[in-house]
């Protein structure tokens, strides 16, 4: 209700035998048309309200507005009826009926609204539960993703391992050959100093100057291409014997050393007799190697 309507309404209530009577009569007739239109609308809305799926809030506010208008009209009519006859005798009954109907609708809608409030609480609880389940699912998803990553890495590494195993199996070498090779490498003192090596010993795990000069490369300019008797000077070195002039004389050397012990060479040929080769080593090799094609007993 706006302020003007409120003042008019109170004035009409206190109409009574006063000068406002004529004023009220004029106003009431002027507003009669609007009231009629309102009542027509209200009757129409009653029929159509059931069909519309308006939100409950809109229905409540609409019904409340209707109650306000109807109650105002009713009170105005009563105020006018105190001073004059009603223009239409049945009109008050219509208004009253509509007012009662609207009031009943309002009460029903309020009950519906309260019920909807309870349902809304249940919906909020369900929404919280849905959120909790969503977070559980996301956590499970993260864990599954992590597990999948770990397993994928493990499977990949296992496959690589299997590939390398298969590759090794295809290019396998017998253990006897490997042991023989290892023995020959170690027998030439290339991996470890000889037991009687002392500081000052010229022996080295690599070819020294003397050995290089006495080898094939060192004597390239002097020697013929096919060598002597099919043998190159390097063969003498390869065979493990140096010319006397090149043999170093050291106190730790014995007669055996001059014969057999030479600076180590780097031959890759299994058929060559390694320096430091003596009967003990030969026995070791024989013991270690059971292959009859062992070249450990070969000598030049």
């Amino acid at each position: 209700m706006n302020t003007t309507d409120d003042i008019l309404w109170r004035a009409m209530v206190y109409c009574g035998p006063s000068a406002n009577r004529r004023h009220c009569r004029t106003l009431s007739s002027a507003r009669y048309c609007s009231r009629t239109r309102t009542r027509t609308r209200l009757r129409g809305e009653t029929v159509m309200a059931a069909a519309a799926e308006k939100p409950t809030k809109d229905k409540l506010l609409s019904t409340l507005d209707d109650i306000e208008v109807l109650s105002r009209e009713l009170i105005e009519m009563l105020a006018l009826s105190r001073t004059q006859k009603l223009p239409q005798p049945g009109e008050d009954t219509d208004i009253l009926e509509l007012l009662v109907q609207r009031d009943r609708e309002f009460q029903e809608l309020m009950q519906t609204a309260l019920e909807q409030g309870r349902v809304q609480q249940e919906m909020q609880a369900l929404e919280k539960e849905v959120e909790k389940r969503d977070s559980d699912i996301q956590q499970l998803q993260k864990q599954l993703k992590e597990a999948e990553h770990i397993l994928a890495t493990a499977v990949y590494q296992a496959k690589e391992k299997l590939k390398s195993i298969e590759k090794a199996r295809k290019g396998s070498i017998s253990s006897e050959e490997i042991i023989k090779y290892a023995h020959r490498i170690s027998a030439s003192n290339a991996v470890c100093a000889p037991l009687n090596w002392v500081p000052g010993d010229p022996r080295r795990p690599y070819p020294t100057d003397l050995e290089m000069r006495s080898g094939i490369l060192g004597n390239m300019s002097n020697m013929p291409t096919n060598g002597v008797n099919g043998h190159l000077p390097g063969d003498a070195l390869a065979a493990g014997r140096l010319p006397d002039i090149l043999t170093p004389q050291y106190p730790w050397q014995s007669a055996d050393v001059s014969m057999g012990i030479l600076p180590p060479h780097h031959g890759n040929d299994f058929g060559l007799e390694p320096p430091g080769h003596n009967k003990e080593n030969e026995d070791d090799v024989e013991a270690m190697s059971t292959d009859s094609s062992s070249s450990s007993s070969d000598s030049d």
Partner: protein
Amino acid sequence: MTLFTHGLRRALMTQQPLDVNMATAEPVVEEAEDYSFLPIIHDIIKCMDRDSPDVHQELNKLKTKIQEAREQISGLPGVDMSLALQESKLRMLREQVQTKNQLLQKYKSLCMFDIPKPS
């Protein structure tokens, strides 16, 4: 006006369409009385009948009650949709919760390691 007042009182008591010639009155329906505006309107009309000075007070009460009802309606939860829509949303939420529970139960009890048969 007296007949009018009687008619309104009867309407208040019965909450049925008003009939001036109504002879019987049924028991009062109390449950929705809090949200009814008819008692106040009845009081206003009674005051008008008696030319009581309290009519202003009653008019103010009616105005206040209407205003309070508007404010209460604005603050009610869950009334922004119709009842049918709300029920369908509730049904949907219940189904969602059930589906998610089933999904979680399924994945928690799932055997993750399917041992492939040797080919």
